[in-house]
Every structure is written in C-alpha cells, then in structure tokens.
C-alpha cells in the first residue's frame, strides 16, 4: 500500500458562462513511503491544484468533483473536521511558493514555529521555545537565538523559506507537499533549500510531492517524475528514465525546450513546440496534446487519456508510441520548425 494514493481525481471550477471548467481531469498518482515524486508541467496543467487537493485545500470556488485521495489507506476526502485538522497537523506538511506571504508579517518567526508546536504537539511555552530554536538550527539558520525574535520582513527570502520548512516539519509529517518551493528564490539560495530538503528527507524519512515547472529542480530532488499537461498526467517514471528516454511526445517536446548551459557557444534555434498549453475553457476531444503533436493520428481525437505501462515502472498516455524504440534522447537542434 502506498503512502499516498490519488485515483481518478477530478477538480472543477465554475466558468464565466456558468459552465464547469475541468482543471484536473482524472489524475492517478502514488507516492511511496520516503519517496520524492516530482509533478512537472506548464501553466494550466493542474499540478498545483492536484497538490492542494491532497490536503483538501483547493481554493474556492474550485472543488474536487470526483476521485479518491487515500493516505495510509484512509480516505482523506471523507474525513470529518477534527480528523481533517489532525491529518493536516501531523501527517502532511506544506510549503508554498511565496516565502514572505506564507508567514504572518506581524508575528516574530520564532513565535510562529512555537505556535505550531503548542497547538499541534501540545507543548508548553518553554518547551516549545526550546524546540523551535532547535528547529531553526536544524534548518540551517545561523544565530537562532537572535533570529528567533526576527520578523519575516527582516529576513531574506531564503531564510523565510527555511522558517516555513521548520514550521511544516515541526510535527514530523510523513508527507511533505512542496508547491514551487524555490521559484521565488535566487539560484544559489535555491540550491541551498534543495539541499536542506534532501537532508530533512534523509533524516526524517519523509516522502515528498514536489510541484515545479522547472525541470532542473525536479531532476535534482526527485526519485520519480509525473508529467502533467492540460489536466492529465501524460507520463510517469523514474527521473532518469523520463529525462533520457521519454516516451510521450509532450515530454520529449518539453525537454527539448528546456534551456541548457551546454548550449553556450553553440547558439542555435531549438525545435520548439508551436502554440501554447490549452486554456481551461478549451475542450479538446481525445488526447489533450493531439492538436500540437507532430505524431498525432486520426484516432488520437477519440482515445481516452490513460496511462499505460511502457517499461518497468514507466507509464505513458500516448497510444501511438512514436518513440518506443528511439533509445536515448538527444536535443533536436538546428531545425526550423514551421508552426
């Protein structure tokens, strides 16, 4: 039994003309104990919403309209109020994209950590403060005594993110949800935070669902990767496999678009994907990627989006499988692509 199981998850929003817009269209995903799974995709892919759904924190007016979310076998979507609070407090932690916006600007950061400890672990004031200081030290904040008393705006983005990690790991959750945790940070700070997350994971055995649009971040931190497009998962597999032997045409095209340092001195056009990711309101019959796919066939407008195994622990939603025997991927460069 996996630690987290998401099955046929469907999330809908009311649209402009009172229709229902489906942002997440039937997602299946599993995270094992101690595993780090990356959820990668562009705008409108539904990755952020999927992540929020695990904690039942889908922003209104959106709502989960179908599917199941199971944590340790228990149905999260059916939890009552106090059990849900318990779940959010102890089983799952979350870190967000905006380090400043996620902390209370009028409270000292130390108090914010201590508050979690007092409320969720029932610690008394002095014990909570001691533990909070220990946590600050664990997340790599220097001079914790001094920083304890700081307000969020007095700290850098990286430090605020560390505080957020301290707060969310305070109750030793078994699963951490990270929604674009390093997007707002400088690249050097980002590297530090990723290292910190790796350390916490090693020390705590914590599993993680990491949402990001940045393939570099996902490659650094994740064991397995799920690629999302237009509300569906189009491919899953170990990070290395996804990068070197992607099966789904979208994954290939996406990876082809990722800028790489190695291009330095060899400036050339890339074979870029034409068009843009679908809008919420666009209803695309069959395979959601078909309109942009160079391998699309007639049938593609009628298939149901479903992940099928294409290798050990590797699944793809593309029935055409144009890359089944393509071998390792290399970047397609120098071609002019007519849109």
């Amino acid at each position, binding site marked *: 039994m996996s630690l987290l199981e998401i099955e046929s998850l469907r999330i809908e929003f009311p649209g402009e003309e009172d229709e229902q817009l489906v942002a997440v269209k039937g997602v299946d995903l599993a995270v094992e104990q101690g595993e780090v799974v990356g959820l990668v995709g*562009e*705008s409108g892919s539904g990755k952020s919403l999927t992540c929020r759904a695990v904690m039942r924190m889908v922003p209104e007016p959106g709502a989960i309209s179908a599917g199941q979310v199971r944590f340790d076998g228990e149905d999260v979507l059916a939890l009552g109020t106090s059990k849900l609070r318990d779940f959010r407090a102890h089983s799952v932690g979350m870190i967000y994209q905006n380090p400043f916006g996620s902390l209370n600007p009028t409270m000292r950061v130390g108090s914010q950590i201590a508050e979690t400890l007092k409320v969720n672990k029932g610690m008394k004031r002095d014990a909570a403060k001691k533990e909070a200081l220990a946590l600050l030290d664990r997340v790599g904040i220097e001079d914790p005594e001094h920083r304890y008393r700081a307000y969020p705006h007095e700290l850098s983005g990286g430090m605020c993110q560390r505080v957020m990690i301290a707060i969310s790991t305070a109750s030793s959750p078994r699963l951490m949800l990270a929604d674009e945790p390093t997007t707002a940070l*400088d*690249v*050097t700070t*980002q*590297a530090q935070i*990723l*290292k910190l997350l*790796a350390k916490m994971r090693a020390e705590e055995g914590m599993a993680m669902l990491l949402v990001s*649009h*940045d*393939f*570099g*971040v*996902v*490659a*650094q931190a*994740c064991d397995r990767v799920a690629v999302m497009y237009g509300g569906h998962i189009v491919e899953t597999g170990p*990070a*290395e496999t996804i*990068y*070197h032997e992607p099966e789904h045409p979208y994954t290939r*095209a*996406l*990876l*082809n*678009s*990722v*800028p*790489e*340092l*190695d*291009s*330095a*001195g*060899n*400036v*050339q*056009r*890339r074979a*870029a*994907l*034409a068009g*843009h*990711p679908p809008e919420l309101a666009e209803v695309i019959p069959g395979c959601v990627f078909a309109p942009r796919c160079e391998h699309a066939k007639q049938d593609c407008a009628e298939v149901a989006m479903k992940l099928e195994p294409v290798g050990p622990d590797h699944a793809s939603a593309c029935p055409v499988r144009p890359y089944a025997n393509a071998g390792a991927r290399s970047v397609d460069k120098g071609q002019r*692509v007519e*849109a």
Partner: protein
Amino acid sequence: MTEAVTEATKSGDVHLLEVESLVKEFGLRRGLAERIARKEVAPHRAVDDVSFTLDRSEILGIAGGSGSGKTTLARCLIRLIEPDGGSVRVDGIDIRAHKGAELRELRRRMQMVFQDPYASLNPRMTIGAALHEAGKVHNRPGSDNEQAFVSRLLGLVQLTDRIAPRKPRELSGGQRQRVSIARALAVDPELIIADEAVSALDVSVQAQLLNLFLDLREELGVAILFISHQLAVIAEVADRIAVMQKGRIVEAGATQEVFAHPKDEYTQALLRAHPHPDPRMRFVS
C-alpha cells in the same frame, strides 16, 4: 576585464552601443534624526562603474540575481532612470548629452521589451492601434498605411493579422510578448534590450521566443542585450556574457569560455548552483 567585454574597435568603426563607467546611486533618504545629527548615509550604488560594448547583430547576455543592478542598468541605458555618472553612446553619440527631438531619435534606436507580458501592453488599446501608433509617432516609412504596416510587423513576430483588432486580454502570455517585440520593432531599432523578456513564460513558449530573437538577429541584424537571471537561458542565445553582482560586472567574455572556465567566485557559485535538468548530474551533497 574591461577588454573582454569591450570588443576591440575595428579601425574607424564605432560600436553600436558603448557604455562607459555608468553609475546610478540611490540616495537613502535621511530621516529627521539623522539629519539633525548630520549623519552621513552612504548612498547605495545600484550600478557601480559599468562598462561594456555591443555591436550590430551581437547578442550580449547580462546575468545576475536580484539586487545585481541589471534592471537598473537597462533602464539607465534609455534614461528611463537618469544615470548619475558615465556615458552611454549610441553610434558614438552620448544619449546623456541630448534632450528633446535628439533624445527621442536616440531612444528610437534602442527599444526595450519588458518582463511582464500582462502589463506591457495598454489594456485599452487594440494591438493594431498600439503598433500603428508607435510607427506613426516616429514617422516610419510605411506608417501611413496602417493595415500594411501592422501586417508586416505582426509577420515579423510570426503572428497573423487576426491579432490586430484584439485587445491584450484576449491573447496568451507568449502572444503578448511577441506583440511587445513587434511594438519595439515598429520604430526600426538597431538594438533591443530584453529585460527578463522570457522569464514569465512557460518553458515551451520560452523556447519559441528565444528562437524568435535569434531569427530577428539573423534577418534584421538587430543587436540584443539579453538580461536574465537564468544562466541556461542566456546560454541559448548569447554570444558573450557579462555577470553582474551588486552593481558591478564581475566577469565577462565569450559565453562558452565563461561557463567553462569561470574566474570569479560569484560566477563559480552561480554555475555550481545551477540545477542541471539531467538527474544524473545532481549536486554533490
């Protein structure tokens, strides 16, 4: 180090853009108490003695994190912000020494594309109107025929005429950036300053726009000053790179050379921190 950024002038040739010892200070406002105590508050140098050159058809990347001064630098070049020292020469003419019609003409030659695709276009103007206005104000050849003028510009950025009657809110982020580029091209600039122009776009759309910049360089001979905090993006387009930290250029040279053999500590740190998308190349813990 200045030599690496400043290409040797071919005899008699003047650089398209020559920046020398550019300085921009932001004086910290002194509070009343400080004024009374006559305390000296050192002003903050956002751009600290920056020099570089750029020639036609060249793409120069400016890299740096937040606080490096790269955006302030960009705004100083076209005097959106007034520099405090140094010179900015376009074809040998110092933009700081002119005003009125001459300044306008110099500005015409250096256009800017901004980061935010949503706020870069006037929400109340149609695309066609915005593009035509730019051409008309500068009396560009062909601007009296609005339809043809707009059509040509849209074609340059690979958009169809169907975009012309639309308003910005009806377009995607990538389309809006293309329109911003088209607007810049409307006045026939020789240099485009792209200030984090692709940073707010999805990766697949970003790749399209990078291709577009390369196409424009090849087909119009336009030079590009490409500002970005992402080293990999700069690697995709820039011939040369200058790395900025705290207002200064700390390293510069041919992109490949700087990435392969970084001499400055900050550059080294940036390269070390760069998350390679290949899982086989993880940070060494």
